[in-house]
């Protein structure tokens, strides 16, 4: 008896639709076991994680606030992954966007600068993110260097640059020696949508990005090229599509969106530049992209779900003393199940009895 994979004649549409749900279900089962092993009441833990945050207005706003960067970054990443370009350095592009945008905020601090400041910051953030993403893309296209490794190495570099700036030249003199810039001026801050709330304009921008992503992929020739280059590189060559150009384009868009997300996060919910502005948004967005099936609407839903795990994780830490790392374990397990379930779209399991051919398998 042996379990083997058998290629399906065509992609299974039913499995494609329900596989993210199966993945979430399996993840919840796994987490229930983990909570029990940790000696926590699993039912209560699941309630605190997934239900409680949905029950009050403040948490709902927080979910939207957390989902904003995740969705923006993941839309860009999905373009890269569809084109078979592996940008996994979104975290670094996020940080660079935050740094570049903050530069304007820091330089105009306490001056009479007008309302041009915030738009300029957003623009700078997006450009810096795009340029930073183009480094691995150019290294890949010109020299054939693995974009996976180079984009990831640059995350550490961006992290150290941010650290240097807030401990050195940009440090707030009144900050009691904490490594942070001063609070940004009101003109350098993303406006909130609800009086006294935390929901901010960036969430609207994220929705616009989702719509733009859907149009790009669904209605334009560029979107078609991206899909073909990723899915069938040979066909794309015959079709005259320039794969290298698409790598540069998708990395640039992806970096711009990550950078934009970075400066929005700093100028919005955080309010100043400091280390630890991201609880790993750039990496979690990879999960969001896959859970959303590299589809803009799917990514929006997946982003909200992953944001829920961040908020639920914080509440579980406060209410039940469950370590925050459980959230990362949860996210990793979820990604595993998403990928595993995706395998069933292309393959089906078959149990075969031991045949001579299989038994012969050793050398």
């Amino acid at each position, binding site marked *: 008896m042996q379990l083997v994979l058998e290629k399906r004649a065509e992609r299974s549409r039913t499995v494609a639709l329900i596989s993210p749900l199966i993945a979430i279900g399996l993840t919840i089962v796994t987490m229930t076991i983990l909570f029990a092993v940790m000696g926590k009441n699993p039912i209560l833990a699941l309630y605190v994680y997934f239900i409680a945050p949905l029950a009050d207005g403040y948490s709902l706003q927080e979910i939207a606030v957390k989902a904003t960067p995740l969705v923006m970054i993941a839309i860009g990443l999905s373009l890269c992954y569809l084109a078979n370009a592996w940008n996994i350095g979104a975290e670094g592009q996020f940080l660079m966007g935050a740094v570049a945008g903050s530069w304007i905020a820091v330089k105009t601090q306490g001056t009479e600068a007008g309302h041009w400041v915030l738009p300029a910051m957003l623009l700078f953030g997006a450009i810096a993110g795009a340029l930073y993403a183009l480094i691995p893309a150019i290294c890949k296209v010109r020299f*054939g*260097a693995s974009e996976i490794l180079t984009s990831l*190495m640059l995350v550490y570099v961006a992290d*150290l640059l941010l650290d240097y700036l807030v401990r050195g030249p940009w440090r707030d003199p009144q900050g009691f020696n904490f490594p942070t810039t001063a609070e940004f001026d009101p003109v350098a801050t993303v406006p909130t949508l609800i009086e006294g709330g935390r929901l901010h304009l960036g969430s609207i921008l994220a929705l616009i990005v989702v719509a733009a992503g859907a149009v790009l992929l669904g209605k334009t020739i560029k979107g078609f090229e991206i899909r073909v280059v990723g899915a069938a590189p040979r066909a794309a060559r015959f079709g005259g599509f320039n794969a290298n150009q698409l790598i540069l384009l998708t990395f640039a868009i992806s970096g711009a969106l990550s950078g934009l997300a970075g400066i929005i996060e700093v100028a919005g919910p955080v309010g100043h530049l400091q280390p630890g502005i991201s609880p790993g948004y750039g990496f979690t967005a990879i999960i969001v992209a896959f859970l959303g099936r590299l589809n803009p609407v799917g990514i929006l839903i997946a982003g909200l779900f992953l944001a829920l795990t961040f908020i639920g994780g914080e509440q579980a830490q406060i209410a039940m003393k469950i370590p925050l790392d459980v959230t990362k374990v949860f996210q990793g397990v979820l990604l595993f199940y998403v990928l595993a379930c995706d395998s069933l779209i292309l393959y089906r399991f078959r149990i075969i009895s031991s045949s001579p051919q299989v038994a012969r398998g050793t050398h």
Partner: protein
Amino acid sequence: MELIEAIILSVLAASTPLLLAATGELVTERSGVLNLGVEGMMIVGAACGFGGAWLTGSIIVGALCGMIAGTLMSLLFAGMALGLAVNQVATGLALTIFGIGLSGLIGAGFVGERITPAPHLYIPFITNIPLIGRILFGEDGFVYLSLALIAAVWWFLYRTRAGLIVRACGDNHVSAHALGYPVLRIRMYAVMFGGACAGLAGAYLPLAYTPFFIPGMTAGRGWIALALTVFASWRPGRLVIGAYLFGAVTILQLHAQGAGIGIPSQFMSSLPYLATVIVLVLLSRARTGGSTAPAALGTVFVPDR
């Protein structure tokens, strides 16, 4: 003289985890599997290695715990990438994200604890020889183990039939399968070896490099190990050179900081990462006449029946 000795000793110590992890990944990749989860396997190895040593007081038990943890993590990867034919890049990323969370969870109880680090070899008289004595005969056991391991891997890959089969799986899994070799099983063993090495490399950090565990202490070493296999063109000999060069860059920045050079420490700390990018670019550029990577590296294989 003493400064040179100190520098060489610290370079060897900084290089050893890189060499161990990269040795494992070299074998994995030679079998045709790209496991990007090295960082995840390392960091879980670090947490479990420290936990094992702290609970039992034995460095060897700690090292074994690290190796077992790394192997279990790699089996997770093997089940996905080989058993379910899932994209290897995505699975490797998942392994790293999962590993970072898991290691934080496992290690939460150990933060702030200390152990006695792995002892250094001491042979009377010989170890006392100036300069070379301590460098050649005064290291901790992991340093010798890592060098023995890479030598064994060289011998295995190039001097044994099994090694030839592993390389065949990495270069052309269809042919290897047609010849009757169980490609998936061979790859699983290679992945497990990679996991054990990564786990040991992670365990080296709290067992010998620093005597305590902190979350995230691998700090990208797993990714640098991945870059090292590219640097080495998948050859064991070059891997040793590469690992020691990278160890040297790491130590260079530490000593430069200590010497009070007027460059901000963060710029010096970013050197190993920048060096990785530059090395990858230079090597990929220098490589003419096609890539030296195993031809089937990173491709999914589902046997026909």
